[in-house]
């Protein structure tokens, strides 16, 4: 379930450091009072970076490496010699219509999840500012509950709710007269299966958007708005010229984070569509690569998919870094 959890963590992670970001000249020099002390920082850095190099850096290098070989079960067990095939794995993928359909699925599915998560999260954040405190607390507590639910258990519960014969949803639909839902399988059709997974994903990822955007709205000081009002600005004008620009950086960060996690979704698809759906109709890149490697023993091909996936996310990350830079993040 790493996809979601690490995604969640990424997201809030890249948020918090901004606490100390205010680029006052005094602050910038003062907060590093230990200053230039030669090798001292390297002793603190060494353990973490050794682990990172061993468990992230080296595997990425190996991933690229393996993707350039014809690497199958025979080569793993040492029965056949390793053969360097260059970009052949990539050529095979690009010539395979299934790869393109999986890529299309990934983009559509991730895109839909991003849009829905942002819509639900931001509208609830706006709504939350208008609530009585206890109602707001109730909303936040249940949202945190959904956020905290592990992807594996969330997927299990949603599958149960949408079970063809025993699920509550079908029973409810039949009881209001929609008899065609009697025994209806939500995972049989490609798009209803994607829809089901997307609902679960939105359910457990909108709380992050809610909490972040709500905090953003709260952070706009009343004095600023009061001052604008005294200057004679109308409410729509304040919304457009003051609040929207002030919220834009947060919305940007939240959007990019959502794109990154939803591209990485693995557990939900794997569990809810039983490894990629009927005849692989619900495969996304991550699951496809995993299946190629560990189900079909095509480690080279699976690695090539991993490289493509990593490259796509790196491009998104670069966009993210540029936005951070433009909004004045001081690293």
């Amino acid at each position, binding site marked *: 379930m790493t996809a979601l959890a690490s995604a969640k963590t990424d997201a809030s992670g890249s948020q918090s450091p901004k606490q100390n970001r205010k680029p006052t000249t005094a602050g910038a020099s003062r907060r590093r009072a230990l200053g230039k002390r030669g090798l001292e920082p390297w002793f603190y850095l060494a353990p973490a970076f050794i682990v990172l190099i061993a468990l992230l850096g080296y595997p990425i290098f190996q991933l690229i490496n393996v993707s350039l070989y014809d690497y199958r079960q025979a080569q793993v067990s040492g029965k056949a010699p390793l053969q360097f095939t260059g970009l052949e794995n990539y050529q095979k993928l690009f010539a395979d219509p299934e790869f393109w359909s999986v890529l299309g699925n990934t983009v559509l599915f991730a895109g839909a999840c991003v849009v829905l998560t942002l819509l639900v999260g931001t509208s609830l954040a706006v709504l939350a500012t208008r609530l009585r405190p206890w109602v707001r607390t109730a909303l936040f507590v249940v949202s945190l*509950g959904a956020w905290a639910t592990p992807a594996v258990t969330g997927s299990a519960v949603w599958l149960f709710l949408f079970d063809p014969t025993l699920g509550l949803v079908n029973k409810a639909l039949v009881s209001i007269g929609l008899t065609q839902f009697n025994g209806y399988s939500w995972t049989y059709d490609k798009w209803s299966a994607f829809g089901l997974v997307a609902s679960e994903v939105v359910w457990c990822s909108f709380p992050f958007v809610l909490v972040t955007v709500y905090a953003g709205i709260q952070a706009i000081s009343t004095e600023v708005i009061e001052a604008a009002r005294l200057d004679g600005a109308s409410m729509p004008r304040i919304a457009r010229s003051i609040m929207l620009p002030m919220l834009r950086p947060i919305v940007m960060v939240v959007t990019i984070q959502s794109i990154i996690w939803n591209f990485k979704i693995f557990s939900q698809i794997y569990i809810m569509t039983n490894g990629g759906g009927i005849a692989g109709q619900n495969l996304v890149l991550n699951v496809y*690569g995993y299946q190629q490697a560990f189900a079909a023993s095509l480690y080279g091909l699976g690695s090539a998919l991993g490289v493509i996936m990593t490259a796509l996310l790196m491009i998104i990350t670069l966009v993210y870094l540029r936005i951070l830079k433009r909004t004045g993040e001081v690293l």
Partner: protein
Amino acid sequence: MTAVDVSLRKNRPAPDGPQKLRKGGRRRFGADAAALAIALLVAFPLFWMVLSALKPKTALDAGDAAPFTLEPSLDSFMRVLSVNNFGRYFLNSVIVALVVVIISTVLAFLASVALTRYEFKMRTKLLIVVLVSQMVPVEALTIPLFFLLRNAGEAVPLVGLNQLGSLVLVHVGFSIPFAIWMLRGFVAAVPVEIEEAARLDGASGFRFVRSVLFPLVAPGVVACSVFSFISTWNDFLFAKTFIISAQENQTLPMALLTFFKPDQNDWGAIMAGSVIMTIPVLIFFIAVQRKLVSGLAGAVKG
């Protein structure tokens, strides 16, 4: 957006006229009702999970759709804990998650000290490396890590395939970038005066970090350790891939999946297992909830 303006002022005890207040009250009622309906909807899957775990197996198999149960039973829990050895998997999950939390938090804390309180040439570049490594799709690394651990296991059996150590190792690696990124803010927030005072009292760099800095940022350390805990606790991909034959070393998520059978899923057991698996995370999440929200709020205020 106008809605925001109105509401923003309403959040504060504004000296509005009585007429305005009444109007606000009505509007508020609509918003409150809508929010409560949404809250119920969001909470429903969790409610259904707990309820189904408590329903007797016969009722579940008959497709009981009642939103309550008159004869709550712990049968499903018993089935999960005894027949399927869930207790053992629970313990494995706890061990892996706790070891990961301790190791990754300590390493990340030290690294974040170096990255925030020292000035050196590579600092910004290393920070970007940390940020970028957060984005790496770790699922894609399953293949090289599988071979890496297979080879490592020949030298150090403890971290080889089929061992809990292998899970600890990979999750420490995946948790560190985020932990550094999050702790950075907390470490940098400690005023430099405290550091100077410690220096004057003759504390060495490491002494200051250990005895002054660490206790001061402990709340932040707890908040970020929860994230390492959750991501480790939730993982099923690596458990599935690395723990191949040693059933006794399996963790919770994989154990839960064993209840899914092609013909007849044991939903009672799946729901009971889900409850057992969700509760620790929920407790942690609610415990750090304030820290989390205020951290995000602080982040936004700049």
